[in-house]
């Protein structure tokens, strides 16, 4: 009976989704003329090279036009990491070290991950430093760096993340983000307003505050995701 009801519900949801999507033609240009922008997407596309001289329009939207949302987003990630730690809290004895993996990995995996780990860090740093020129940015670079730490945690039994270092990096990155926004508020009467010279498009140093904010977001996301993984991996077994 329950199964019949659920299949009926799925059929209704699927029918209405299909009907509504059939009215939205795939590949139709809904943005309109870029020279006289009427939609918000066309506005962002036409204004970004002149106003911000940032090559990647998505970076311009995420960091500058909707920068306040990004501040909220990193706050949500921070809250997720904190909530995870408090839900899974278990009192440790003093000086007790909980290994992240139960059995030590093979020598091949250990040597290989030691070799790959710096390369992953460099790739992540490249992705978030060049976030305004190429695809990528703070979130992607931070996730890549967290993957590198994950590799080390999985292959070495006694690899520990220093929690005070994670906290300091995260706090300093958050303070940098917020204070850049506040400087913009003081100088140009709007939060996260661009107060630095924008430079030329496709230069590494261009776009004013956008690369600075994305580097801060990269450090913050890397610290938060590494903290989440470290918390989950060092759960005390029963």
């Amino acid at each position, binding site marked *: 009976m329950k199964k019949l009801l659920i299949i009926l519900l799925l059929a209704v949801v699927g029918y209405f989704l299909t009907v509504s999507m059939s009215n939205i033609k795939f590949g139709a240009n809904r943005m309109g003329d870029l020279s006289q922008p009427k939609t918000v997407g066309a506005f962002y596309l036409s204004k970004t090279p002149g106003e911000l001289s940032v090559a*990647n329009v*998505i*970076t311009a939207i995420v960091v500058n036009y909707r920068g306040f949302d990004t501040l909220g987003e990193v706050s949500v990630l921070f809250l997720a990491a904190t909530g995870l730690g408090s839900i*899974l*809290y*278990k*009192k440790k004895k003093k000086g007790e070290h909980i290994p992240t993996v139960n059995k030590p990995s093979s020598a091949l995996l250990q040597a290989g991950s030691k070799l790959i780990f710096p390369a992953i860090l460099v790739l992540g740093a490249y*992705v978030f430093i060049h976030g305004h020129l190429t*695809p*990528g*940015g703070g*979130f*992607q670079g931070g*996730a*890549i760096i*967290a*993957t590198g730490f*994950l590799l080390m945690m999985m292959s070495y039994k006694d690899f520990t993340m220093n929690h005070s270092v994670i906290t300091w990096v995260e706090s300093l990155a958050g303070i940098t983000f917020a204070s850049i926004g506040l400087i913009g508020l003081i100088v140009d009467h709007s939060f996260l307003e661009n107060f630095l010279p924008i430079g030329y498009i496709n230069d590494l140093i261009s776009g004013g505050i956008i690369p600075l904010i994305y580097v801060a977001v990269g450090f913050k996301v890397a610290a938060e*995701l590494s903290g*989440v*993984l470290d918390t*989950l*991996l060092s*759960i005390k*077994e*029963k």
Partner: protein
Amino acid sequence: MLFYTIVLIILAIILLGVAIYAVVQKDLLYAVIATGVISLILSVFFFILQAPDVALTEAAIGIALTTIIFIITIRNTSRMEDEMPLDHEPNSESDNQVETK
């Protein structure tokens, strides 16, 4: 264009098949790996649909990090979906009570 269309149709069929497999599989470890495969195919979809930023995010977060936190959860809970009911009572001693000191 023809190439992209063929790739996309083949990947769509694989995507739906893997999603159904992830739902019906009783062994949760296989199901989690199947969700990782869903993320991988979605990453290719985003690239074909001209969204390289989203493809990079999905590749980094969806494939690596989400899969690993699911695997850690399975390590700490049960692996099979239809586990036998345990006959002993839930114990509050092993629960993580905050000790007041």
